[in-house]
């Protein structure tokens, strides 16, 4: 109970060497007296990563096994999925893709302008450009979506005509904001990666700044910008299901509607959402691989 504990470093803090209150005992570093709470992590560390993965996967299958014992079978769920596929893909996923294309288009145009603004020698342009870029790069996309979609009017009046603005179009503008900011950074990064010697050579040949930028610097930037641009497209596409939270009828919303029509059996969850996962993966993974091969091809040789 009261044993003189061996202290590895200096004197005990409170001047007591003997006590049975663990809180007042000096901490014992030596291996002679084991501290109990280190034992579990050491035991866990003895497992190899692969065996831990197997154990985790088996753990994850457990709910699936439980569900299979319900009276709605997995095969029926797959059948339901099959019937709803044309609806989910044709009206849902296609809208996700349309939103991703339009967002990338709007975001790229705005982003290039913003990026050029960031490198402008006039503070009045570069200051606000930098601020806008940082603002939308560091804001959560969902919050931006909420702000844009709920703030923008649902119809606009030009002259005598009233034009309704569909919700997916508002979503395009909402998602275009962070994309614009990130493209702006890609453009700025590409421009400053061009060696200063190019600027000096252009200067010594009496090119104006505008000519230097458009004839010499930007053409060299173009190739460098493609891999990160494609990367952001993949990220954006994977983010499009966010718009379902604002009521846009895309793949996640339509999947939920389909499951609702099929009486909301819990066995439907994994097939329907699993399918959404797989279709996004099948679209984005080839883009990611192609991006990697482009990066290798465009490696900058200085």
């Amino acid at each position, binding site marked *: 109970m009261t044993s003189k504990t061996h202290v590895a470093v200096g004197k005990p803090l409170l001047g007591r060497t003997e006590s049975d209150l663990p809180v007042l005992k000096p901490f014992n570093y030596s291996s002679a007296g084991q501290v109990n709470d280190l034992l579990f992590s050491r035991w866990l560390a003895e497992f190899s990563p692969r065996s831990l993965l197997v154990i985790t996967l088996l753990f994850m299958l457990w709910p699936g096994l439980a569900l299979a014992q319900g009276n709605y079978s997995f095969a029926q769920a797959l059948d339901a999925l099959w019937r709803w596929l044309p609806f989910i893909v044709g009206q849902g996923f296609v809208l996700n893709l349309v939103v991703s294309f339009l967002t990338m288009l709007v975001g790229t145009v705005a982003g290039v302008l913003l990026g050029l603004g960031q490198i402008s020698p006039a503070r009045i342009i570069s200051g606000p450009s930098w601020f806008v870029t940082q603002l939308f790069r560091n804001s959560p996309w969902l919050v931006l979506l909420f702000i844009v979609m709920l703030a923008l009017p649902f119809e606009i009046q030009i002259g005598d005509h009233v034009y309704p603005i569909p919700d997916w179009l508002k979503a395009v503008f909402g998602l275009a904001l962070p994309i614009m900011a990130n493209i702006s950074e890609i453009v700025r990064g590409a421009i400053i990666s061009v*060696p200063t010697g190019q600027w000096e050579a252009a200067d*010594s040949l009496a*090119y104006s700044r505008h*000519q230097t930028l458009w004839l010499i610097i930007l053409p060299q930037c173009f190739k460098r910008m493609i891999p990160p641009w494609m990367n952001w497209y993949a990220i954006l596409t994977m983010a499009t299901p966010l718009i379902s939270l604002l009521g846009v009828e895309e793949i996640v919303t339509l999947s939920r509607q389909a499951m609702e029509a099929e009486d909301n059996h819990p066995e439907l969850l994994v097939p329907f959402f699993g399918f959404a996962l797989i279709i996004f993966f099948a679209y984005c993974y080839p883009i990611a691989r192609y991006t990697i091969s482009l990066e290798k091809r465009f490696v900058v040789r200085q």
Partner: protein
Amino acid sequence: MTNSDWTPDQPLVSIRDVHKSFGNLEVLKGVSLDVRQGEVICIIGPSGSGKSTLIRCINALNTIDSGSITVEGIEVNDPGLDKLKLRKNVGMVFQQYNLFPHKTALQNVMMAPIKVLKQPVEEVEARARALIKRVNLVGKEDSYPGELSGGQQQRVAIARSLAMNPDVMLFDEVTAALDPETVNEVLLAIKDLAKDGMTCILVTHEMGFAREVADHIYFTDRGVIVEHGPPTTFFKEAKDPRTQEFLSQIL
């Protein structure tokens, strides 16, 4: 000071008591020199002596802190300087060539006269081809810089600067990045230029070239011109101990 005041009997480039600092480091501590039309000037000296900074000040790539530089009567240190006008008369060739990698050799040479001087394309193309022939690169007009060797790229860079018809050419250690065999082909091109009467200011380590081609040699060390003279007297009768020490190390 406008261009029209200047006459050929005055120095083409006139540098008077130039001081230049980068932050706390004073790189040029009162440099003065004159270059007359048709002269070939070589500036030699150890690294950090301010040679490159000096010639970069001549075409306003660096701004000077005090003193004056005039090129054909144009005040370079004038805050209201029309840089484009100055640079149309002053050509520069860099140590790292700095060719535009997305254009062929011929396009590199042709681009500036067309875009900057707004000259007609056929006339520029003819002149560009003649210049490429002059630097001995016939057959390489449609090659991209990535396909050319260092010496070939440097000669394209020379042709590119010449295409603007400058009155003075600045060479900033143009052979320093080349291997000894290719150094020769570039020096031949420069010698050819000098023979045709082009005013050249070279920063170089090539003493043999300087001895052969230069009209005047300036030795700089730690931001000042220590000694200068025509090559015949400079190399044989260097007076200052710093000059003698430098020459003994390289000759």
